[in-house]
């Protein structure tokens, strides 16, 4: 069989593009490939990356979650509050995650039982969670934590930053759930054609709700990492994060209309955003310009995706 270049480009385009960018940066900047810089890039991507795994579930099911940035802020501030109030590490984590799960549950139930589109519900939640964060914190950051909680964002395991470990485990679990469990297969199926899923005797509302719960959960996980790392929970963190998270998913090849994609793509998408940010910083490019470049890359990725669709 002859090597089908077109086919390879279309199937692995995003991975190749990622490699290409890395190679170019490695040539332009000697710092890029240093171990410390690499760890730094991955650690930066872990915040978006973890949330993007949850977002992948949502987008695969044909939905969208605009509330992730605000939910992150709310979980973070509650965790920070608990931490400064002397709650133990497990209590902090449990509380933080619970907040995320409850926000996701609210989103999911309103979408399935209230029959309101995900866009509208999560847009509302974006505002509600941000408001609650401001109310709880009185608009001021909550800072200064004890050792155990600091480990989540700042610790190392075998020389690897703990956030990277969390990211790796999250991606792995996300992949296993999507490929090996009913929840995962139904997520794809619902994104493909919900009516067919219903007519197959499946309680699609339950699974759809679960998808938003997962997204809430991963937002809370990112909140714990970020809050711990900054040693502070702020009312304004996480603003506009939903854009980078959705971008990571879309760059990773998950179709915004649902039913097609994977967490591996999402991981590459998250790394890509991080690498580009890092690279442009290393090269000393004006931050205003960086925004433009990022936008171009998102559009380029979706364009690539369309080519792949047409090939089918």
């Amino acid at each position: 069989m002859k090597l089908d270049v077109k086919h390879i480009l279309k199937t692995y385009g995003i991975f190749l593009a990622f490699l290409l960018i890395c190679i170019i940066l490695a040539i332009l900047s000697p710092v890029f490939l240093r171990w410390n810089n690499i760890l730094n890039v991955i650690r930066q991507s872990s915040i978006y990356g973890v949330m993007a795994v949850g977002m992948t579930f949502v987008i695969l099911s044909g939905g969208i979650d605009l509330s992730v940035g605000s939910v992150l802020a709310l979980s973070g501030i509650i965790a920070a509050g608990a931490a400064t109030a002397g709650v133990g590490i497990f209590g902090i984590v449990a509380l933080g995650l619970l907040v995320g799960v409850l926000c996701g549950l609210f989103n999911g139930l309103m979408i399935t039982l209230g029959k309101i589109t995900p866009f509208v519900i999560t847009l509302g939640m974006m505002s509600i969670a941000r408001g609650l964060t401001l109310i709880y914190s009185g608009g001021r950051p909550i800072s200064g934590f004890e050792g155990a909680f600091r480990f989540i964002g700042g610790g190392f395991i075998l020389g690897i930053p703990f956030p990277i470990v969390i990211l790796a485990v999250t991606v792995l679990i996300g992949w296993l759930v999507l490929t090996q469990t009913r929840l995962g297969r139904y997520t794809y199926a619902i994104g493909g054609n919900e009516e067919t899923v219903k007519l197959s005797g499946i309680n699609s509302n339950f699974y759809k709700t679960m998808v938003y719960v997962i997204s809430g959960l991963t937002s809370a996980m990112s909140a714990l990492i970020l809050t711990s790392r900054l040693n502070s929970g702020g009312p304004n963190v996480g603003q506009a994060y939903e854009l980078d998270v959705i971008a990571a998913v879309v760059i990773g090849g998950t179709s915004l209309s649902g039913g097609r994609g994977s967490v591996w793509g999402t991981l590459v998408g998250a790394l890509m955003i991080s690498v580009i940010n890092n690279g442009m910083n290393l090269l000393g490019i004006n931050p205003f310009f960086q925004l433009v470049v990022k936008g171009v890359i998102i559009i380029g990725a979706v364009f690539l995706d369309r080519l792949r669709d047409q090939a089918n």
Partner: protein
Amino acid sequence: MEPVLRMQGISKSFPGVRALQNVDFELLPGEVHALVGENGAGKSTLMKILSGVYTPDEGDIQLKGTSVVNAGPKAMLDAGVSVIYQELNLVPHLSVAENVMLGREPRRAGGLIDWKAMRAEVKKLIAQFNLKLDPRTPVYRISPAYQQVVEIIKAISLRSDILVMDEPTASLTGNEVERLFEIIRQLRSQGVSIIYISHRLEELWEVADRVTVLRDGERITTKPLAELTVPDIVRNMVGRELTEQYPVTEIETRDEVLRVEGLTKAGVCSDVSFAVRGGEIVGFSGLVGAGRTEIMQIIFGYLKRDSGKIFIHGKEVDIRSTRDAVRNGIALIPEERKRQGLILGLSVFDNAALAVLDRNSTFGVINFKKLSDLIHRIVETIGVKTPSPRQLVKFLSGGNQQKVVLSKWFVRDCDIYIFDEPTRGIDVGAKVEIYRLMQSLAQRGAAVIMVSSELLEVLNMSDRIQVVYDGRIVKEFRRDEATEEGVMKYALGVAGSVA
């Protein structure tokens, strides 16, 4: 006579599939040329090559003597070829007139659409066929038969001289089919050449002059229909003798499995009561729109009911969702495969496994090994023609897609199977297989319900027949007392006039 169309040596491959191999096809002016073959034989692919949607790997296409290969869809349309595809391509929320004139809307000065001219034009076209149809009606509100007619009107309005119809009668019933045949004859008399694809072989003699048979992507024969019989065509299609079209078996009937009492939903059905025993196949006959599909969807928990009771094995059950229905052992094989039966972007495997994931998983984790065996076996038995179970369903031929829908429910052990138009778009050989599978379900003790618009199929396969008219069961026939005329009379609401 010089042919209007000559396709020569056409070959086309897809990854893993050789769809067409060195196929020749000729169409004479004013001829109705039938194109038949098993599911996946390559009929639709040949037509998509003709319309310019696909480019052939090899071969030449000549329209009135000029070569037009690789011209593309727009050029073929301009050259007078229009195709009515297997799956209708109408925009549901646009009106009949807008659908017909889509992309060619008459404009007034300033670029605004000239609605008056548009309606007048479409009205004229409708009048040609003596139809009662308001051009302003949105398409989703009219019956599938009329939707088909809208597609035809659209094709005619392009003043094409070659018209392709890919299984136009698949979703039509008796009268509507007659209506369509009249239209076809009328077109032929105007000199339009028509390519007509169908799996209902009996009807070919009513409209077509010649027939071409494809098998596995090769042309087997082209002959005038007058020289052939149904068994001749079948032999050419499947490559062997097909002994029986409707298999017969003696199945012992057991205790009652399903009983429905006084099922009522405003505007849909009223006071529907019937019972099905284990081992029985009960047919539901009626016109499109009589409410058969809706009655079944109510039993399956997909539509809500106003009143009425459902009993399974003598016990009343409370079915409020499709999940309740499936848990109570009911399966519904829906009528609209694309919208309700399939997930086109997923694989054959994923689609066929959708309804049994719960039974093949522990704590939500799927046991793929066990599942694979099951799915592979059923896909094999039903004969889904696919290069691999990993193939996406959207790449299968129409009939093979239907077989995937059937597979999904055959793999699940249920007490009650409701088939809504199970053989729509399925070839003759595969139909027999499906009938056998239905019988084996009954043999196992399941209650089988078959909703079908193919009268012969209902007559031959059912132990009893319920005739539905206007949302009510107006008559029940035992197998030995049912005749075509008898059933038709009640289906049309002529006999036993409903109070």
